[in-house]
């Protein structure tokens, strides 16, 4: 079994990101109980990872050993992965009609019963440590596969992440890349007003990571450049990319709203946003 890495141009990926954004809203329209705001902030991150040539994958055999691992630690904020995985062939696009419906494997919080999901997600603060263990195991086996982990910034309030950050640096896990979907909002408000992270990049650096920031987190080109930079990084350190995003991106009333995490979008608003593209 051999895998492929899907590679689109920057322009095609930006268009793909728009498509994913629309599909995510459509899923939310059918299943209003889904968490849509936190699923709109990482759209461009996922599109870049999955279509930008960074992940060797085998959708027909999702557990293929040669794959690059991608752990989606902020699981409940990854509804946008459903159209991506369907588009790549992990499962039929028909399944997108049934999110959160009886009998579907696509729930409000994704689980590893979904082809393409590596681990149990949604309970926060687990992905980095598990990813570090996988990265260590891959190194032990002499394999060159990469481990990517996506976390939210609110999730970084969990102390388990920082245990894992220290561990990964100690063991030089340079096959581990953590992407932070830094939308700066958790459930009850802006993280700065709850427990401020101050500078995440500085924190990563002090913890022994090679860290970089993407200020324009909804630009596929900017994320692509940062991930390319990570790939050529020979520092021997684990890598972090802090991506500044907007929760509820491009949805009026939702974007950057402090309580957007628990806010559903009205159906007529979704219809307006989607215009003629439904």
């Amino acid at each position, binding site marked *: 079994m051999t895998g492929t890495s899907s590679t689109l141009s920057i322009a095609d990926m930006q268009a793909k990101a728009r498509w994913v954004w629309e599909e995510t809203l459509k899923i939310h329209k059918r299943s209003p109980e889904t968490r849509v705001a936190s699923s709109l902030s990482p759209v461009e991150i996922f599109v870049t990872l999955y279509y930008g040539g960074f992940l060797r994958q085998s959708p027909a055999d999702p557990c293929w050993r040669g794959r690059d691992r991608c752990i989606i630690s902020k699981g409940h904020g990854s509804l946008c992965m459903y159209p991506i995985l369907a588009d790549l062939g992990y499962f039929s696009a028909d399944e997108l009609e049934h999110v959160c419906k009886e009998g579907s494997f696509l729930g409000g919080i994704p689980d590893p019963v979904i082809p393409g999901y590596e681990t149990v997600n949604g309970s926060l603060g687990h992905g980095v440590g598990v990813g570090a263990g996988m990265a260590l195991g891959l190194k032990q086996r002499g394999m060159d596969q990469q481990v990517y982990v996506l976390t939210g910034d609110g999730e970084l309030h969990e102390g388990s992440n920082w*245990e894992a950050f220290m561990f990964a640096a100690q063991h030089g896990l340079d096959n581990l890349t953590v992407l932070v979907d830094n939308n700066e909002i958790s459930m009850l408000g802006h993280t700065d007003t709850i427990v401020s992270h101050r500078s995440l990049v500085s924190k990563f650096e002090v913890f022994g990571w090679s860290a970089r920031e993407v200020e324009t987190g909804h630009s596929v080109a900017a994320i692509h450049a940062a991930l390319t930079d990570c790939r050529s990084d020979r520092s021997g350190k684990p890598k972090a990319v802090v991506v500044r995003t907007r929760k509820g991106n491009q949805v009026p009333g939702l974007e950057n709203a402090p309580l957007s995490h628990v806010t559903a979008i009205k159906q007529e608003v979704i219809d307006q946003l989607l215009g003629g593209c439904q």
Partner: protein
Amino acid sequence: MNVPAIPMKAMRDTFLLSVYEAMLQDSDIFFVSADFGSPVLDKIRADRADRFINVGIAEQNLINVSAGLALEGFKVFAYAIAPFITMRCFEQIRVNLALLSEVRPMNVNLIGVGAGYSYVVSGPTHQCYEDITLMRAMPNMYVMSPADQVLAAQLPMRCLQNNGPKYIRLDAQVLPVLYGNALPSLDDGFQTHRQGEKVCLLATGYMVHTALKAAERLAAAGISVGVIDLFDLSKFDETKLNAEFSTYHGVVTMEEGFSGRGGLDAMMFDHIARHGLTLPMLNIGVTGGYRFEIGERQTLHEQVGIGVQAVVDKVSRFSQKL
């Protein structure tokens, strides 16, 4: 001919020695410690440094890193003090071992040292009276609780042969040898040490030794009790255990954990109910709440109702009612 005496060792060390020997043969075994050691562990650290990792005092990361290694096909032993490896990181165990192993094949073995009061002078932070309850709460967690070093040495092979998450609770002290002559059947999951007439003492871990002492005193008082070591708390042979029970009028559970809080006692209530047995039961476990007294293990045990004399008194009264 005399059987050569077995050197007195902690069950931790015989267990680890078996792990060490397995690691020499099997390059898929990883050992992860949360800054917790033992003399035998020093051999693993020296001779298998490539597959020994100390994550530091970080039990959440101990579990998560172990899960990640297991996902990459390693058979993992995760090692720490019992209350910390079961309680500090309970949700990591639940999510990344119990839940995830339902979907992905994983072999992670949690080795908790310091069951019950075995860290005698360290007080309630380092003692562990809740672990059986908590680990058994997860339906796919395989829980083993040996009472001596000989049996403990057998368990690593069982761990390696069975996928899934497991918890092995080990005593921190050097205990008398129970299995110097013959090994019990690991598939049975229990071993009868003494046949009695009226009452059967069903004990696990350290309490097997208490049960044997209590049985002697009870016999001297004319009360004949049997003693069973239940060392497999998940997969023991229920039919065979029922056959043992059938000769008794009552059963007494004995655990070095809180009484009435979901431990061995709850497990046997469930067992008796599911099998429709008519078998009066007495449950001996730690009574009262958390305490801070300093003293010998036996003294502490008497204070909470699980010492030898407390057992003799309770079983005598129970026996009279049968």
